[in-house]
């Protein structure tokens, strides 16, 4: 006699569909732009990074927000209006 076959259910959760977006257009150059540094964690990297960027790119208007946490301190809607690019690290 053939062994009984069973229908077995799926333990996996339900993934909602995700709209996939293109990247925002890139900048032609950083000169004259407002670039925001969103720093979270790893000061051994982010402190020299901030120094180098400000030193090597003096024509950029640099803005910075820092946290020791793993969630970045976000730009306000007003700040987003005047920000041309964001560098975020090291957590996200």
């Amino acid at each position, binding site marked *: 006699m053939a*062994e*009984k*076959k*069973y*229908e*077995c*259910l*799926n*333990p*996996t*959760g*339900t*993934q*909602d*569909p*995700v*709209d*996939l*977006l*293109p*990247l*925002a*257009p*890139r*900048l*032609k*150059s*950083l000169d004259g732009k407002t*670039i925001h540094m969103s720093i979270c964690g*790893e000061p*051994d*990297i982010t*402190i*020299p*990074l901030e120094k*180098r*960027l400000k030193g*090597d*790119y003096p024509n950029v208007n640099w803005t910075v927000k*820092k*946290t*020791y*946490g*793993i*969630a*970045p301190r*976000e*730009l306000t809607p007003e700040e*987003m209006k005047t*920000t*041309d*690019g*964001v*560098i*975020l*690290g*090291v957590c*996200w």
Partner: protein
Amino acid sequence: MPYLTDLEASGIPTVLIDLSEETNKVKHDARLYGVPAMRFVEASRTMDGVQDVDRILGQVVDALVRPLSDEEKKSGVWEPKEPRILFEGTLEEAEEFYQQTENIPGILNAPFARYTDGLPIVIPTEERVERMLKGTSHKPDEVIRLQRDIDMRGIGEVNPGFKRKKGEIVRFMPMGRSATVEQVAVNAVMAGCKPEYFPLVLAIAESGGGTGDGRGNGGAYVVSGPIYREIGMNVSYGRFSPGNPPNKTIGRVGSLMWRNLGGYKERVSTIMTYGDPITNGGFIFAEYAEGLPPGWKGLNEELGFRKDESVLMTVRPMGWGLGQEHMPGVYRSLQKSGHGAIARFLGVKGKPGPHNYIDYITDGIWRTYEGGITMVLVPSMAMDMYAYGFKSKEAIYEYIWKKSFEPLGTYRMRGRPDWFTNGWTSIEKTSGKRWRELPDDYMVPAGGESPWEDCIIVCDGEETASERFSGGHGAAYSIDVWR
């Protein structure tokens, strides 16, 4: 990552700096949050920071100015579909199917289970899942949602507490998936649970199924209220040992929810560091409220429920065995006749109890640890503390918390506060001032932000041993609403 998505969607180009072994997780999250082509630069965990910045600086700038490729301009929809019936075949074939593994490069190609916690499971046949569903009045297709408002405890400014609202869909992390009652039942069957355990399992699901923020380890749970008796949870000798089906199988179900409902896959969807040896394999136990001293509240009442309500509390027992060790007999000698090591420590040699065991057990616990302590006491030890003068649990919590105070100059030497004080820039709660403005001799609590971070649970037994771990009071979920 949702923040980076918002920025890109708003037309602001971004670049993420990650650490090189996190790249799989970055790619994974980028797709999950809708920007699969997210640009990132890999920093090093080991290289000197100045040299590392020299190495990556050009890449960071390039990511902001390099024109987009055709691939990076694409939009679309990611819509993974999972069939309800996953497998059809004999039980033996099903065992082989459910226990399949894949080799993950990020963990040196060690095998990682696709559908289990690594242990054999009970095959979730349609009939078995149907039987499990008889353990609740909730419909199989009901999506798991919060059944009441929940206050989530946080730590410091960088990880503050927050409120969650009744009706909110529960998201199982790290994938942020939802689940139906039936999907939870499938995992309960796989864990070996019985239908009468199912309301408790559903409360675990409501709590997030032990998935946390994606690094939940399957969670850890304490049960309060009459359900422990109804389903036969062992609250007595051997409560942390093998042999009791509800403790073992319900404890295990969180790991399966994390793997299956949440989609945990190490070094792919999650970066877990090394896991948690305390909760690996399951962590659940129940309170024996019948053993409480007069006037001491059960955990359910402490958490705002009635004493006849069954409640699940989530805990984080990341530190086990906190406090001084002792042989159980040494405790009896202390209280019976004032002899033995604890009596010598307390300076009560020759004087019968009651004596303050709390002074002994908490000595030195904050030397390398910050936060509260959870203690499991047997009824006679709880009664001793009552007789000593602690007429409520709250009185002990307050006492322990106050013992934890130390000068700020000492507190600054600790590792974690750098993080949760946000580099000492946030407000210290007892003073209302910024940490940096306080003098070194200002006294601050190493035992957490409030006495609520301590917790006492009474379990059955006469052997005078206590279990102690970190965690304190966690979020509370009704089990009864899932009956």
